[in-house]
């Protein structure tokens, strides 16, 4: 088991003829992801890395039975690409694109309220279920099949956590990057609910950062509902207030959204918070050992 993506995932790459998309289409295919179609308006009939290209999402889904899409198009047209995928009724949309105007995302989020389609991102690294399906831009080789779920607002910190887990001999069930934008699709709680119900996930690492209150809400949800141990990390302890730290959503404003506050709430909710970004894996392993969960057995697997 896993969440969101697996061997049954049939993927469309939106914007497949762009250079970044081409490069990652190749890497995703090499990893074993089943890419059935690409979409670039005006390039229908071409092929990229052996993948047929269509002019519209409607065509791509109709002809190939695709059930998921990944978006690599430029920021100015990305919101339209999300709407196009949602209208074509794929189950899952993963939007990698960074710098989408917030006003566009507000409309997209409202449109998706009446749809069953799940949006992950934007401004995210994607989702990977090791040895089954990799959708996005994460380096495949650091992942290892196993039982730890990872969810994060930061792409590179997801890699960092996965890498640490793999080095400790702890594989991952699924790693999900939810993205660093203030208005996004899937939230921490949405992903945690999935991990909670997934029998193959035995523990979770949740990585947050300054800005907003998503982590606090997730922590309260964990305290009340989560059946599995959770370790966490928050970046931005040293970030100055009022400055946007790279991610559009990473800003301390009006004294709200500080790392200290998030860490306090997380600790109070029973989450083991790592002191440094280099001990995220270790913190989870220690927590699971303390709780007598079968982490030792997993290590031997």
């Amino acid at each position, binding site marked *: 088991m896993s969440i969101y993506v697996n061997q049954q995932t049939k993927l469309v790459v939106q914007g497949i003829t762009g250079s970044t998309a081409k490069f990652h289409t190749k890497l995703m295919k090499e990893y074993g992801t089943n890419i059935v179609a690409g979409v670039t308006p005006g390039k229908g009939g071409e092929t990229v890395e052996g993948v047929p290209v269509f002019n519209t999402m409607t065509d791509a889904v109709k002809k190939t039975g695709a059930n998921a899409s990944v978006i690599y198009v430029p920021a100015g047209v990305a919101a339209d690409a999300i709407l196009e995928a949602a209208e074509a009724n794929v189950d899952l949309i993963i939007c990698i694109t960074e710098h989408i105007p917030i006003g566009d995302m507000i409309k997209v989020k*409202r449109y998706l309220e009446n749809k069953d389609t799940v949006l992950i991102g934007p401004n995210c690294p994607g989702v990977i279920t090791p040895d089954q399906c990799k959708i996005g831009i994460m380096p495949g080789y650091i992942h290892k099949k196993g039982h730890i779920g990872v969810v994060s607002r930061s792409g590179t910190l997801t890699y960092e956590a996965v890498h640490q887990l793999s080095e400790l001999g702890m594989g991952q069930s699924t790693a999900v990057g939810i993205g660093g934008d203030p208005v996004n699709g899937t939230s921490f709680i949405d992903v945690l609910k999935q991990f909670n119900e997934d029998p193959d996930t035995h523990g979770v690492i949740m990585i947050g950062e300054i800005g907003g209150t998503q982590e606090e809400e997730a922590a309260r949800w964990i305290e009340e509902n989560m059946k599995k141990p959770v370790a966490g990390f928050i970046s931005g302890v040293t970030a100055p207030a009022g400055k946007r730290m790279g991610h559009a*959503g990473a800003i301390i404003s009006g004294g709200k959204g500080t790392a200290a506050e998030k860490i306090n709430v997380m600790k109070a909710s029973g989450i083991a918070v790592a002191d440094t970004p280099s001990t995220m894996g270790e913190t989870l392993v220690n927590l699971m050992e303390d709780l007598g969960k079968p982490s030792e057995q997993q290590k031997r697997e």
Partner: protein
Amino acid sequence: MNIHEYQGKELFRTYEIPVPRGHVAFSIDEAVSIAKELDSGVVVVKAQIHAGGRGKAGGVKIANSIDEVRTYAKELLGKTLVTHQTAEEGQVIQRLLVEEGVDIQKEYYVGFVLNRDTGRVSLMASTEGGMDIEEVAENTPEKILYEEIDPLVGLTAFQGRRMAFGLGLGKKGVKQAVELFQKLYKLYQDSDASIIEINPFIITSEEKLIALDAKLNFDDNALYRQERIRGYRDESEEDPKELEAGKYDLSYIALEGNIGCMVNGAGLAMATMDIIKHYGGSPANFLDVGGSATTENVSNAFKILLSDKNVKGVFVNIFGGIMKCDVIAAGIVEALETIEMNVPLVVRLEGTNVEKGREILENSSAKVISAVSMDDGAKKIVEVTKQGC
């Protein structure tokens, strides 16, 4: 992106949102001639800088004569204003807004902001105008009213009325307020604003509503389609290194420390600052090179880092995903060919194309201390920069 109050009021005028008569002045003579033209008994001279708290810091003056306008303009222009929102060193006043004084019956607060919890824009208003709204939210949260706006229908008239009655406005005031709220929301939408705040927004004794202030902030991601807003940019209000970095699509923020950081990804870049601090060092900057940086951008990033005189060492921490390690390595090598590097350099590479990246660094003449992990790199850079002091 921030703009000045007078520019915000220009936008308000375009949307027929009432503001006092007035004009921007860049010199004392200009201030005086604007005041003469206004020909109002009381003239307000307001320092224009990109920070709030100007009133408390002495940046807003009430003049009762043309001579007083001259005196205040002379006092303010060129003066450094330090408010609770500026950096410690403050901001030099280069522009003044000279406008007519108005008769204030009561002050209110009105704001449009993004509610991140719902992914929608909220209209906020309060009877506690003229106060620091964050303090009001902290001490008397019941005095702030909210209306959540559905993006499909916009701010409706009934929401505007509910808000206006909630503020205790009379019949005449309610009608004006509803129009004003809807015009402001239209401006917010049309201009890709991320914040519009009017504090205070006032009612006169003739029951006329006027925006006495205008604080506007815009979504950087949407500036490409906002020509008029782009034209309002005042680069003198921004950090020169941050501006330079922006030209190369780099996200850079200057800090006080002595360890220069170059990282990919915002989360990892913040975490790198945090871990440096954890081991007793102090980061000189936040720098996210992003996912699509070219070798040239990386090379420029390196030059910007080294232009900070406080930097005693540089830590490059890369976990390639969309960013490829070989691009970073080539950028470092290119930068070191053109500039002299007199401080130690610690590099940690992992992720996409890591082997190619390591090879490029090994085959170059660059003096690099390599690190096997972020932890290792952080310890090494803190150690070598301490030795240097």
